[in-house]
């Protein structure tokens, strides 16, 4: 049964990807612009760090190549989570505006359907940037480990997005706060992990787990530690499962509104 459900959801995922592709072809100017500008955004930011490291040499032992690793982990994780599971950032809006009704009335697992039914062209720009960095700026010997450690990053992004979005089931007017928390996670993950020490490091690992998206994987690339490697995967899976639990628990409190909207 579970296998059939997984196959069925995968087929639905493929159908959505076909629709998204058709949409991209139809609105190709917007698609190309959005993708290109996010790509350019990443280039500008990486150039900024290049200029800063040019001046400083290193920041607490981390050099510019470490920033490249940070951006590889960050942009590919953002890209996968945002392009293929775009609604993970939109849970709060779906709850507040009564848009969950569409999903609740269909014979598909609610959360899976919600996650895969939207994509973000901006995040495709991130994904392309990350892949190009991986191809041209990273030693090929490190690629398998990097690809493996992107999985927890994706799980954390999606899980955290669902978690903060699910606050809307419990707290009124938490949409803005949830969005701030998510943007903070994204933002912190793009800074060199070497600047965080002590209590701040604890916060960036276990409260706003940006460290597990980028800093910990980069550290593991330098010197592999099995304990931290296992912790990385255990934490990301635990966060993801917690997010699913909180979402479905919150769903029981969901009340639809009278708002009519056209789903395009």
């Amino acid at each position, binding site marked *: 049964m579970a296998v059939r459900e997984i196959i069925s959801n995968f087929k639905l995922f493929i159908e959505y990807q076909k629709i998204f592709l058709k949409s991209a072809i139809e609105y190709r*100017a*917007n698609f190309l*612009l*959005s993708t*290109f*500008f*996010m790509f*350019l*955004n990443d280039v*500008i*930011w990486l*150039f*900024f760090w290049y*200029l*800063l490291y*040019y*001046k*400083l*040499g290193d*920041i*607490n032992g981390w050099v510019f190549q470490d920033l490249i690793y940070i951006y590889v982990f960050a942009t590919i994780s953002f890209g996968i989570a945002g392009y293929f599971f775009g609604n993970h950032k939109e849970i709060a809006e779906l709850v507040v505006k009564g848009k969950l009704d569409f999903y609740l009335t269909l014979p598909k697992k609610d959360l899976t359907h919600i996650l895969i039914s939207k994509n973000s062209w*901006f995040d495709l720009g991130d994904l392309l940037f990350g892949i190009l960095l991986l191809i041209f700026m990273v030693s090929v010997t490190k690629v398998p480990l990097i690809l493996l450690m992107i999985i927890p990053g994706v799980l954390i992004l999606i899980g955290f997005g669902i978690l903060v979005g699910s606050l809307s089931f419990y707290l009124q*007017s938490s949409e*803005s*706060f949830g*969005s*701030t928390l998510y*943007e*903070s996670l994204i*933002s*912190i993950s793009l*800074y*060199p992990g*070497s*600047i*965080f*020490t002590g209590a*701040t490091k604890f916060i960036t690992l276990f409260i706003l787990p940006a460290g597990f998206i980028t800093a910990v994987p980069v550290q593991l690339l330098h010197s592999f530690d099995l304990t931290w490697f296992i912790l990385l995967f255990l934490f990301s899976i635990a966060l993801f499962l917690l997010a699913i639990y909180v979402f479905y628990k919150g769903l029981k409190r969901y009340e639809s509104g009278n708002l009519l909207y056209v789903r395009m």
Partner: protein
Amino acid sequence: MSSQLNKYLSISFINIKESLTYIWDIIFGKVIFIALIIFVFANLWTVVFASKGEVIPGFTLAMMVWYLVFGEAIITSIGRFVKEVGDDIKSGEIANYLTKPYNYIVYKMFVSFGKGLINFTLILIFGGLVAYLMVGGVEISLISIPFLLIVALLAMLLNLVIASVISLFAFWIEDASSLNYIYSKFTFIFGGMIVPLEVYPPLVEKIASFLPFSYSAYHPSKLALIFSFESFFKVFLVQIAWISFFIIILIFFYKYIIKKVSVNGG
């Protein structure tokens, strides 16, 4: 003319009152996020100064962090101006505004300016609090404050005028958010919002300090920390020049576009 200005000033005043009504939304949204960025950079500079000392001669650790506070307060105060204009154009909502007895883009600028004053104040307070707790305060002479406020307001206006020109591209590309994204990154980095331009290699520093973006961020922020009347007059005059330049572009660009605008039905 004065009645026209009163009309637009009333719009700003209404938006100030609206912002004050929803002040906690602003604090828990934008302001906390910016305070977090200041916190992150305070960590960064603390670590750098501990191992390398002064990065720029004459700039202490506290000055590096407070520089960011001032820059953030000015630049991020305009909020999502370009996106809002882009949304109006994409949705066709702009058709409602074009029939009203005011200029649409001037109206949006005064709306943004009103909200921007509240954002500016809140970011200074909360961002300043984070900076103070992390690295302590900086010395700012009382006599310089009125002049710094003038330069800060002109910096916000310059940023807004440039954003207005960019927002008009939404008439062609329908989604100017992407352009705004890049413009804002240019201002953050090459406008010197995040770090003083002296951090960059000399050629980059020279080019960036000439561009208009630096008069929205770098020059006002540096003036706040290293004030002199000579620098004030220089920054003031160049800001007026750039604002005038972009207003002229905006007027011609807007007149050209409005003649050609078409709105989709629905």
